[in-house]
């Protein structure tokens, strides 16, 4: 492809090729402090390409391809090329990751122990993880937590934090010195702006953590905390994993092992200050 860059996020090496320069330039800038793939070996390829040759120039629209693709995925306008690259990387992980059980969860770490947060889109797992990052926690990832079946440890995948709609303003205020990507207005998920994980998150990305607490946050309700039993947690995590079935018995063992030893709470919160206070309280009490 005309333009390409390589980078590593946690244990996963990517090569992103593109028919256009701008998405690659944006990736190079935002991921400039990230390492290169270990030994130069790339795990996944992402390709951003024009649906027809002339569509490189005329109303350019970006198709997302790579080692694994979803047929009929709608292309994005070139102005959202960065989002296309991020979606392409997520897609490779979701469809093809086999070494780790992939949990659709955000993760932050303190004292070598990980707090996981998972839930429906809009539950606030990305925003809460990013806010905790500004309060001394190490961000391990806002989208995927990688559970290692061999060790039971969580490995970090600190890609760019994907902030949507109201979360953009929240984080611009909470992280005034943060490095943000361009505002991508009017995407299929609304407005999106990426935030680069802080230096501590990038420096520690190869350090796994022991899972210590799992939260299912729900935004928009009065403050409440509820214990979630292991069987319910197990079922919800199989649904929150894109590769549970593909992992077979290793996935089963990893997940039953995780839920057997992990305290789990569902938390409802009306605003982020309440959520952060709940997180700190529960971390002190049950983690």
């Amino acid at each position, binding site marked *: 492809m005309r333009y390409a860059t390589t980078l590593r996020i946690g244990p996963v090496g990517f090569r992103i090729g593109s028919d256009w320069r701008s998405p690659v330039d944006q990736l190079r800038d935002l991921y400039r402090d990230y390492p290169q793939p270990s030994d130069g070996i790339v795990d996944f390829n992402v390709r951003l390409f024009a649906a027809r040759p002339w569509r490189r120039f005329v109303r350019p629209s970006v198709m997302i391809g790579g080692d694994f693709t979803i047929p009929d995925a709608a292309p994005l306008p070139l102005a959202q090329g960065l989002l296309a690259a991020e979606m392409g990387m997520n897609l490779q992980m979701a469809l093809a990751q086999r070494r780790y059980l992939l949990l659709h969860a955000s993760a932050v770490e303190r004292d070598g122990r990980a707090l996981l947060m998972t839930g429906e889109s809009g539950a606030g797992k990305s925003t809460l993880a990013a806010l905790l990052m500004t309060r001394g926690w190490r961000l391990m990832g806002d989208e995927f937590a990688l559970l290692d079946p061999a060790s039971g440890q969580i490995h970090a995948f600190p890609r760019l934090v994907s902030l949507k709609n109201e979360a953009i303003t929240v984080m611009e205020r909470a992280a005034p010195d943060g490095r943000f990507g361009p505002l991508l207005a009017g995407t299929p998920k609304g407005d999106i702006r990426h935030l680069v994980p802080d230096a501590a998150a990038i420096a520690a990305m190869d350090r796994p953590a022991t899972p210590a607490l799992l939260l299912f946050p729900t935004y928009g309700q009065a403050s409440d905390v509820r214990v979630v*039993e*292991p*069987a319910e947690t*197990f*079922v919800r995590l*199989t649904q929150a994993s894109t590769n*549970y*079935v593909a992992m*077979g*018995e290793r996935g*089963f*063992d990893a997940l*039953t092992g995780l*839920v*057997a030893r992990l305290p789990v709470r569902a938390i409802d919160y009306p605003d982020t200050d309440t959520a952060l206070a709940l997180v700190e309280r529960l971390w002190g009490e049950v983690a």
Partner: protein
Amino acid sequence: MPARYRAPPAVSLRIVPLDALSAVYHRASGQTHIVAPPVPEILELIADQAMTPEELLAALAERFDLPDGDAAGLTARLDELVDTGLVERL
């Protein structure tokens, strides 16, 4: 002649108690099932060994002190397990 039911040998199932419920991994199909008591006990008793519902009911009562003495109800549970692929009807 009443139907007889048989589960796979113990080695081909992984049964992990979670809380009141247990997770069952069926190696042959790669499927995971969440089951309530007395399903783990049933799977253990008829592992690689066919029984009629009446025989199984007696074995459950003896081994696990389960008071639910209803052969029709047990047959319904067994037929559900046949639908999941965890148990064969012979």
